[in-house]
């Protein structure tokens, strides 16, 4: 479980949020929605330990990981993240991305190959192992970023608008992949988006940013199998509920 207590964050004179409180349940997919600039990405960066809060605290599974005075390094939090701009390393091939993470996490060498081929299979990048990010298409890059975040099974997965750079036709495909991953790995997932329809498809809980506070809302679920046309049109329509 991730618990946010009275969190304040400022960038220069701009107050991103003040006194933010929220709880994200273990093993659930929580969707965080809100307009551009409301602090969605900042919230993920704070949970990942990439930013320090000005005041307030963050707890992961009961342990304090962030406060203005204490900050647990990102690598020790058990967090994986898919960045909005993907943050793929331009000097590494797809395979090198994955093997780098495995080495960094000290996974025994003997199982590297198996793990890599399994994850490449899931994200359907089998033929692109030796390609650099620049040689991949938009969708393939997105899937590589997801593969990197999943190659080591950390308990928390943060996704920062993972469909923002994707061609509409690929959106549904990636969403299905994320949903499949959620079922298979059972991680605590926080999915940040400004498209509420994506959240409806994938999430268990919905959080909406409203004037600097996070409000938990009821999720209007629909069944993609029963209503394929509705799901596709809603997701592909890039249905923002907020001015972007």
């Amino acid at each position, binding site marked *: 479980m991730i618990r946010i207590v009275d969190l304040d964050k400022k960038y220069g004179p701009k107050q991103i949020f003040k006194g933010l409180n929220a709880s994200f349940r273990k093993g659930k997919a929580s969707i965080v929605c809100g307009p551009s600039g409301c602090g969605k990405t900042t919230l993920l960066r704070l949970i990942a330990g990439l930013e320090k809060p000005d005041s307030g605290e963050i707890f992961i599974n009961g342990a304090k990981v962030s406060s203005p005075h204490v900050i647990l390094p990102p690598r020790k939090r058990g967090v994986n993240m898919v960045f909005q*701009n993907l943050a793929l390393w331009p000097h590494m091939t797809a395979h090198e991305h994955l093997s780098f993470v495995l080495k960094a996490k000290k996974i025994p060498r003997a199982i590297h190959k198996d793990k890599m081929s399994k994850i490449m299979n899931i994200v359907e990048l089998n033929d692109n192992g030796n390609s650099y990010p*620049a040689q991949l298409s938009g969708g393939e890059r997105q899937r590589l970023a997801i593969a*990197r975040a999943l190659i080591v099974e950390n308990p928390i997965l943060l996704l920062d608008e993972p469909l923002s750079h994707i061609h509409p036709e690929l959106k549904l495909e990636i969403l299905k992949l994320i949903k499949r991953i959620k079922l298979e790995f059972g991680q605590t997932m926080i999915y940040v988006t400004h498209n509420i329809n994506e959240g409806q498809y994938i999430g268990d809980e919905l959080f909406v940013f409203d004037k600097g506070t996070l409000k938990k809302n009821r999720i209007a679920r629909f069944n993609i199998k029963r209503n394929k046309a509705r799901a596709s049109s809603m997701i592909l329509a890039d249905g923002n509920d907020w001015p972007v």
Partner: protein
Amino acid sequence: MKHSPGKLAFFDAIPFLLLFLIAILPLIVFFVSAFQELGYPALEANAGSIIEKARLILSSLIISFITSIISLIIGTTLAFLIARTNLLYRRVLKFVFFIPFFIPPYIQAYAWTLLLGKRGILNVAAMKLFALSKPLFTIYGVKGVIFILALSYFPIVFLLTLVGLESWDPSLEESCSLYCSRKNVARYVSFPLISPYLISGFILSFIFSLSQFSVPALLEVKTYSVDLFAQISSFFNESRVALNSMPLFAITVLLIYLLGKMLQKGYYFVTPAKTDERKIDLKKTGQFFGLSFSLIIVLLSIVFPLGELIFQTKSMNILFKAIASSKDAIIFSVLIAFIAATIIAALSFFLASKSPDTRMEFPLKVASAFLLMIPASIMAIGMIKLWNHKLSGFIYSSPAIIIFVFVALFIPYGIFVLLSNFKQVDKSLEEAASLCGAGRPMVIKKVLYPLLKPGLWFSWIIAFTLCLGELTATILVIPPGHETISLRTFSLMHYGESSFIAATALIPIMIFALALAAFGVVRTTGKAWK
């Protein structure tokens, strides 16, 4: 949208032919003439001279290597402080660190001889203060050459590293920090991505140091470049000198090859990102050390040398006298630099405008990288060999030869600036104008020129300042009866009176300052009109 590379029309090929004629052909001639000499005995064909040459090459390589390492350390540290930290006054310092680039190395060297020469002001003060019988350190000698060249060439490393760091996406490091320690983030992500910029800066400053003639000559150090110049002055046999300068040429080619190999992957083009919010927070101690280091570099590379020149000038009368006596050289220099810079900007514009949609982009980039790194002395020798003939003698004996040399030496700067600018202009903008019925001249005038004006001006001002400060090639090709301000200043340094030399040395710097001020006024006025 991608466009397939098209063929080059005849009229579009003219700029490429001009580039070949002005810059590439002299190098081919240089190479051929060196080969022609292979059958003949070398200038001093004895074992002693071969050992002497090997010793000179080795000492030149060592000087260049140490210079480049120091430039690398200074340039990289400053670029890091400016681009990645919240150092105080970093926006002002960013521009201040470019100033040494506009102070020609021989002027830097001369100013330091006044400060740290045997009777230099700092040495005299130190000797009095500590009752010493002789100075602790003089600027003359190998250490002095390295010191001056490092102060002159660190802005090259600074500029390149700054470009790299400013186009840096911090999330590349952040994504890595989810898996490993800060040390490993630096090792596996930061360093591999920034290394192409560091290596480029290192190689450029290495080649510039290797071909430097004026600074070692002034500081009484015999290097390979000084020796080559002495050979030209003594024997007037350019073919033999071409043959003797082959080691320099070979080293340059080898370094260009290595650089090309290293940059081949092209992965170093990192997506620009706004990094303002993610600067490294320097606490009080960090600010103190960062600002102290910046201040030391500013003092050593700008304040001390320029301050000393101003101090030595003593009075405005001497400055006016120096300006009056150098009037012809000033007019000649400004005129030649103006013409050369205009040709460079125009030619670069046409070369870059045709390259992105033809197969010429890659050869143009390779040729520009090659020309950028060719030592000025080698280009000058090639020019002499090419134009010193009965039919083309009118070019060799006129100021046109200097313009040709300047264009050949400095056109890479214009090409690189404008190529990157053209890349940013969407092809569809031109296509839309063409569909509206505009011919090529109108597309250039109404669409391309307004969009590329800043880049065009920037390349002009860079070319102008570089032409104005050039010395090594000018000494070799200057036609009789003409003198540039750089040449006059350098000549005076050997026999003139110190206050008069100091005043004359200030003139090129004053012209640079005026040119930059004019550029600033034009830009500001342009913006105000808009």
